[in-house]
């Protein structure tokens, strides 16, 4: 690069002179930035259990609405309002995966769920960042956590005010429709 730029300089073009300066600028690199200038992100929501070099402590990101019955009920309303239910049904899944489960692809901790809603996920989960206010995202997180018993029972609604959707509580006679 340097030699090419020098050839251009010999050609006497003003523009080439500028490009030479730019080229020199690119060559100037600080190979080992001073630690003070570099952030080591240790607080991003983890989506893997493997921590190279051994476990590190991480400050827990708590949902501000943990155990808040009103927020959980608002989350339930918003779950339909933002059409989350269109893809995840009432937690059993449809277009998107079920939310009533133990094995989360991108993590099931509040910070993971927050990230998933805001950033989206590559296999079809839309990125809702900029569309849903932060407090509502936390309300949705609170509701989704409640589906898995991750909220105190006292704060969790017994079931939705809609038709019963759990087949285990329905008793059909074979072929009798009802």
């Amino acid at each position: 690069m340097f030699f090419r730029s020098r050839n251009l300089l010999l050609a006497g073009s003003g523009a080439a002179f500028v490009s030479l300066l730019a080229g020199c600028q690119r060559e100037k690199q600080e190979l080992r930035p001073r630690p003070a200038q570099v952030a080591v992100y240790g607080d991003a929501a983890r989506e893997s259990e493997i921590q190279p070099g051994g476990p590190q402590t991480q400050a827990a990101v708590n949902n501000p609405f943990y155990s808040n019955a009103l927020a959980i009920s608002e989350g339930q309303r918003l779950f339909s309002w933002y059409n989350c239910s269109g893809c995840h049904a009432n937690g059993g899944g449809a277009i998107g995966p079920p939310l009533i489960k133990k094995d989360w692809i991108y993590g099931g901790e509040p910070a993971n769920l927050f990230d998933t809603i805001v950033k989206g996920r590559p296999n079809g989960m839309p990125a809702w960042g900029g569309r849903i206010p932060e407090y509502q995202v936390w309300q949705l997180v609170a509701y989704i956590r409640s589906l898995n018993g991750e909220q105190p029972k006292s704060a969790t609604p017994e079931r939705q005010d809609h038709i019963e959707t759990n087949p285990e509580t329905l008793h059909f006679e074979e072929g009798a429709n009802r």
Partner: protein
Amino acid sequence: MRSSERLRTLEGRLHASCCRMLRTASLIFGLVFCGMCQIQNQPDDGQWIMAAKNYSSTRFSTLDQINSGNAATLKLAWTFSTGLTKGHEAAPLIVNNTMYLVTPWPNLLYALDLTKPGAPLKWKYTPHASRSSQGTACCDVVNRGAAYYNGRIYYNTLDVHTVAVDANTGREIWKTQLGSIDDGESITMAPIVVKGKVLVGNSGGEFGVRGWLAALDADTGKIVWRAYSTGPDKDVLIGPSFKPFYAADRGKDLGVKSWPADAWKIGGGSAWSWISYDPDLDLIYYGTSNAGPWNADQRPGDNKWTSTLFARRPETGEAIWAYQMNPHDEHDYDGVNENVLADLNIKGQARKVLLHPDRNGRLYVIDRATGEVLSAEAFAYVNTSTSVDLKTGHLNTVPAKSTGLKTVRDICPAAPGGKDWQPSAFSPKTGWLYLPHNNLCMDFEGLQANYISGTPYVGANVRMYAGPGGNRGEFTAWDPANARAVWSVKETFPAWSGALVTAGDVVFYGTMDGWFKALDARTGKLLWQFKTGSGIVGQPVSYRGPDNKQYIAIFAGVGGWSGAVVSGGLNTQDGSAALGFVNAMTDLPQHTNTGGTLYVFSLP
């Protein structure tokens, strides 16, 4: 039936074009040869060049090496794994001793060399379909197949593109974007090519899309015309040639006036399924999807032209006639099911008809020149309608089963209909239509739906369950000339695969728990069955191999709307999962697992 009557009936079944000459010759010889000429202007050369086999969409193969006498000895010839775990609904194509397979998303295209033992891979084409498009397909990321024309393979990708691929080399020739996943659109249907135009329709009736059918120039991929299903007449390509048979389908700009203000812009009517073509009448036929949202209280009016059959000119797209089966659809009764073209003797008259088994559970026999309904009897258990008035075309619905912003129970058929996309087959030998179908009912709670582009627009809590008898599926041989079932076989799960019928009087289909079955086309007797590694929701095809043997090919790989409980790993604690289908399928995970594999069978 007296023999003279039988002859008259059979005569009526002869297809117009090349049969016309035969008809002047001996009737008996005409019957023998009609198997070869039933495909209008398309001789059957033992290949399979479009998903429905031919423009008439008969899925009838004239090959008869495998017949009802020897089908019991069918053996597995070879297999091919796609390595994918979603629903495999596509029909394989067989052209020039090459088999072409389209997979569910990521919509890979495989070419297999049939001239070599074990059919090794010739090439693989990757369209790089958007990963995010998986989030805008209502009912699994399926694809229903490709079409071959003039040295190229044409098919659609989930992210709303159509591609043309060189059939010899696998090189991409063109790729055209037709819509956007940001608007909730997707494409799952198999295109057909008519007069050098590739015909393609969008999916997204559960995403508030505006439905359309488009024609692309097969050479260049340029869009020649696009006919919307809703909106003003100029967008629907309704002009002076439009002559619907019934008064209810006449009037100016009904695609706007039969909706609340602007609701037609997000009203569905996607053309996500089958297209047929009659070269003599020069008309293409296809149906449009349900109206959106499912909560019908949000869209008072007939909601034209959703749940409608269209007849159009392939050159220009102009509408010639239309018939709305389910005005103001309240049950997700799409009108997209296949239209099988046949010439039948009905009440002593030779009629050019199309056979349309609708989601509403009725089998419409329609004069395909005019759009007149000749009969519309129920082929499945139906309690949402009592009859179709043949004078007015009006579907007489049952008010007690009318849905809206309320809960209604015991609705039959359920949302997937008496029959969904799974295509039937028609044998000109028996004159019967072979119908894989459902026996499902549902409870339906309407909810306020909120339109946010790119997300579902449904507004309903649904739970489905088996209809009367407890069997969730059925396979029926239907006599369309006399509007009655001839024989029927009950299936535990919805019969969600396509059907194939052959000149050997064998009919093939697969079950969701993985049994691939051969039945006697005349009696329904089970001749042979084979247990595949995953449930079957594909489309069986038949072809003549380079060794002159007849082969039967079928994709296994459970999924689709009915199989989403397995392919999507859904939680059966929530019966409303998969739009309520999971409630009826909680036991499927105990019967089958995911995994796409092509199975090919032949006689030993």
